[in-house]
């Protein structure tokens, strides 16, 4: 039983991190209808930038801040230089562009930082908990707290602020939003800043959680988050979060317990295929 709870807690942490990365993807898909595969590369860059700031300053706060700023710039650059000019083509064109960016960024990371696994020897300054014999490590606490704060902020922004309303309007129809006086291009860029900042946070958390940062750490998340936004319902942010949480828990529990002769990464794609066959609009999506 104790093992079960430990696995459950790990699963929730895994799910939280999936949720953080998937959110950015859902955000971009919601507004531009582009599958932003390169988002996972932004996440990798976030981990590297965070590690770099951390080893120079020794401050985790600066590491997070530096990662977020760097990734925001990268995200907006991708949007302005690649996606925006490609928007007038059919959706597979920006998708191919996105894959190309992801591969290039991975290679650039390899060239700049080397093809090795770097360690991220930091402990997050969060308390440890004992719950009936189960230990919640400080890293787990950090993942829970940070995810909750990020989700809370995002919920607040998208439902309560002017920006949220402008984002919803922009995601429905860009020309109309323009006619309503919304500078939709600026709104799109803000969405990229938000999504990329969250990706940076996720990258740094993963780096610390596994104590590993390496050039291809974004590859599996790239495909997995793609599966997750399909399962959650394309463009639906609550759907993306729910699907991520479910997957995180299912992966850790099923693979840890049942003797399923499958690599754990296969689960996301089985779920995606199942969703596409029986409920193609996803968990929370609308047709």
């Amino acid at each position: 039983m104790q093992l079960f709870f430990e696995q459950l807690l790990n699963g929730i942490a895994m799910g939280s991190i999936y949720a953080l990365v998937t959110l950015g993807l859902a955000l971009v898909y919601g507004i531009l209808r582009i599958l932003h595969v390169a988002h996972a590369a932004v996440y990798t860059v976030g981990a590297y930038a965070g590690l770099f700031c951390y080893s120079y300053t020794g401050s985790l706060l600066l590491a997070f801040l530096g990662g977020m700023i760097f990734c925001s710039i990268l995200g907006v650059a991708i949007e302005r230089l690649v996606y925006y000019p490609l928007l007038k083509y059919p959706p597979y064109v920006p998708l191919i562009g996105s894959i190309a960016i992801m591969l290039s960024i991975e290679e650039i990371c390899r060239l700049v930082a080397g093809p090795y696994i770097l360690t991220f020897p930091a402990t997050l300054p969060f308390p440890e908990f004992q719950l009936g014999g189960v230990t919640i490590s400080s890293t787990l606490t950090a993942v829970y707290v940070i995810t909750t704060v990020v989700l809370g902020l995002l919920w607040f922004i998208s439902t309560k602020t002017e920006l949220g309303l402008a984002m919803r309007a922009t995601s429905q129809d860009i020309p109309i939003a323009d006619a309503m006086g919304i500078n939709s291009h600026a709104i799109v860029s803000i969405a990229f800043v938000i999504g990329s900042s969250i990706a940076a946070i996720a990258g740094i958390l993963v780096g610390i959680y596994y104590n590993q940062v390496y050039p291809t750490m974004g590859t599996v998340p790239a495909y997995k988050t793609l599966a997750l936004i399909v399962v959650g319902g394309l463009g639906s942010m609550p759907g993306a979060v729910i699907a991520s949480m479910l997957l995180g828990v299912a992966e850790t529990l099923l693979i840890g317990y049942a003797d399923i002769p499958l690599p754990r990464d296969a689960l996301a794609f089985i779920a995606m295929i199942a969703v596409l066959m029986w409920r193609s609009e996803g968990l929370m999506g609308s047709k």
Partner: protein
Amino acid sequence: MTDTLLQARGLSKHFGGLKAVDQVDLDIHTGEILGLLGPNGAGKTVFFNLISGVYRPTSGTVHFQGKRIDGLPSHRVAACGVGRTFQIVKPFASLTVLENVLVARGITRYGTFRRLWGPWQSKSETRAAMKILERVGMAELAERKAGLLPLGNLRRLEIARALVVGHQLILLDESFSGLRHEEISQLETLIRRIRDDGITVLLIEHNMRVTMGLCDRIVVLDHGRKIAQGKPQDIQENDLVIEAYLGSRGGRHAA
């Protein structure tokens, strides 16, 4: 001497070899209902898009209240006080009627970066939006999802949004098409009332009866060129206009 609210001079838009709008001069006078008439493909909607900033003109200028607006992006034109509707109604389908109007209300607030983080559901905002909805007669539908409304109501909603943005001028792109008889006369009343409230109206319309009855002045486009302008009765008798709509007289009679 009437006041000129919007002035277009030598306005052209070419798509490759196609002269969609060609050297059009047009004045909109403050407080009038001006009709833009012409057969299909005459360039009416392109002209709208040039004024509202969707397209950048190939050549020519547009001045609005003395300020040059051609080439500005559409959100900036909107911010000057030009509201528009679209030929194909496009509400923000997943938002409620009230929220649709609130999006447009944001125009007073999207200006600064800091304000973006402010709330949008304040009491005064909602009250102002409700007032607009009352004006177009949709107050009781405020909480409905916009995507579920029938066409007549969508057209009103579009006008409501345009009114919020266009406190000076609204551009109506075929607001009457596809409507039933009684809906048309209600909308005519609404547009007259809008004009009486001091807002200038430029409208594209196919329905001759509506245009002739509603507009103070009419400008006719054909193949991107302005072929006539004047009072409705003058337009009705203008040979060039009749030819544009019915083909040349001689040719038809011979057949």
